[in-house]
């Protein structure tokens, strides 16, 4: 049971890092506020099911839509400011969002929202194993979406924007449209993760969605290898299970994260499995493949 709980949470982290990878890894838009969208999804589902009496499934869909819409709004902000500014702006969005959750009575204030119902299908309520199945399906959906996008025109446009925004614009790539698209899709996935999270834990409070969560997500993505789906999955799996595996590190968690980020950036900015990381290039050579496609 305990293993299932960890696995479900890791699945939720994977959906989050896959979404963040679309925004930061592919389109190159630094987001330090991904947890805000996670929170919007979670609070949407919680409010609709607990206060509004909605069933789980439409509330989950609403969570995805709400987070995606909020993301589109922030994406519109992103077309006005350059990379450094965007990082601060998204961080600010995270702080303001958490403050709203904390101070507006509708969102339950510091106590949060409890008693969130789980999903049911045909009158049967989901137990832990079936919820894990649902999460796994959602991860597969998110991965499928990312793979499909990576091969599409949008994926190509994002890489062009990431590498050189001006050159992309000069080559008739609609930079504004694709930036907003990246934010919308990436944050919609965060909304999906938020809905699942709220329903799984049955209780949420504002502190779950603060700036430290955004940093943890970014840390996962960077550790795995930013810009790749495999990196997003592996990073989420490693840091998602790390607190369980390394219990003795519990007190030093952020010291470890911080040290890890600095050392990775200093010595291996491509992370463990990024396209330019030593491990991945070694694996490619062993398997007789030349450089892997960027979105593999």
């Amino acid at each position, binding site marked *: 049971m305990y293993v299932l709980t960890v696995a479900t949470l890791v699945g939720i982290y994977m959906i989050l890092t896959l979404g963040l990878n679309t925004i930061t890894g592919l389109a190159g838009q630094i987001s330090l506020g991904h947890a805000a969208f996670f929170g919007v999804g979670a609070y949407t589902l919680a409010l609709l099911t607990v206060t509004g009496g909605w069933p789980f499934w439409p509330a989950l869909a609403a969570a995805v839509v709400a987070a995606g819409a909020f993301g589109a709004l922030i994406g519109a902000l992103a077309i006005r400011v350059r990379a450094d500014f965007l*990082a*601060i702006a998204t*961080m600010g969005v995270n702080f*303001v969002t958490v*403050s709203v959750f904390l101070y507006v009575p509708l969102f339950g204030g510091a106590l949060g929202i409890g008693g969130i119902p789980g999903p049911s299908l045909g009158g049967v309520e989901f137990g832990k194993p079936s919820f894990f199945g649902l999460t796994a399906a959602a991860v597969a959906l998110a991965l499928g979406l990312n793979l499909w996008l990576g091969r599409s025109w949008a994926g190509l446009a994002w890489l062009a924007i990431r590498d050189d925004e001006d050159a992309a614009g000069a080559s008739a790539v609609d930079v504004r449209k694709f930036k907003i698209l990246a934010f919308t899709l990436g944050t919609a996935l965060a909304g999906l993760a938020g809905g699942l999270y709220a329903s799984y834990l049955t209780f949420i409070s504002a502190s779950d969605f603060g700036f430290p969560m955004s940093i943890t997500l970014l840390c996962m993505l960077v550790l795995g290898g930013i810009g790749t789906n495999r990196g997003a999955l592996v990073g989420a799996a490693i840091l998602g299970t790390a607190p369980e595996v390394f219990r003795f590190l519990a007190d030093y968690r952020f*010291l470890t*994260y911080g*040290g890890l*980020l600095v050392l990775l950036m200093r010595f291996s900015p491509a992370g463990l499995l990024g396209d330019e990381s030593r491990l991945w290039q070694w694996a490619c050579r062993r398997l007789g493949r030349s450089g892997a496609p960027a979105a593999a």
Partner: protein
Amino acid sequence: MLAQQLVNGLTVGSLYALMALGLTMVYGVLRMLHIAHAAVFTLGAYAGLAAFRATGSFWLALAAAMAAAVFGGLAMERLVYWPLLPKPPIATLIASIGLFIGLEELFRIVAGPQPYSFDVPVRLAELRLGPATVTAPQALVILVTAVLLAGLWLFLVRTRLGLALRAVSQDRDVAAACAMNVRTVVSLNFALGSALAGAAGMLVGIYYNSVYPTMGDVTAYKGLAIIVLGGLGSIPGTVLGGLLVGVAETLLIGLVEVPFPRDAWAFLAMIVVFLFRPQGLLGR
């Protein structure tokens, strides 16, 4: 009431300005966001407290706070930022965040999570300005800030090094082509910015009578909002931004009953500025 809030706001604002100046200066020469500046600020507070407990002298403690901050800031520049300069900006940004969260945890492990009180007996008389009272700690904060800012200003406009610093922040490559030692100027810049942050950390510790590991949090994020408000890289803009944020949030909290936390206002203001004036209030 209004006058008193204004005095309180100006005090807090001058602390913000002092803290945010280092961020602006580093952005000016390296075009990077130095999130770990907040860790330098906290380091200054702890060093100042330790020196004050050992010697009992405010001025020695201030010197120790600034010296420790300079050491910390230079170490970051040497070991992390300079080697990362050729890499894409996201690499320095992430490394900087990593430094900040790692160091904050380190402060907690070394000094413990509990807040320490920082009780400095100030031998300054209370100042009465009409309806407003400037308390002794407020007078101390404003005085020290004013002296440090005046010193910085004189340095920047009156000395050759100050000129070099301004030149490098305008264009690093052209400055290098004019035979300026960019490396030295960047280090000097880190040293100055860190010294100001160290002083700010100690003054914040005294003003709120408390020093604790996460005291840099709010300051770090708000400092970023302030330098954006003022126009990234603009030194007068940062001072103006700091004072504005300090006064505005004190007035909003004191006079209007809005159920919204003090610390979110700066970000809200920043997001509005982004939408209507992305280059900041005094940016070019």
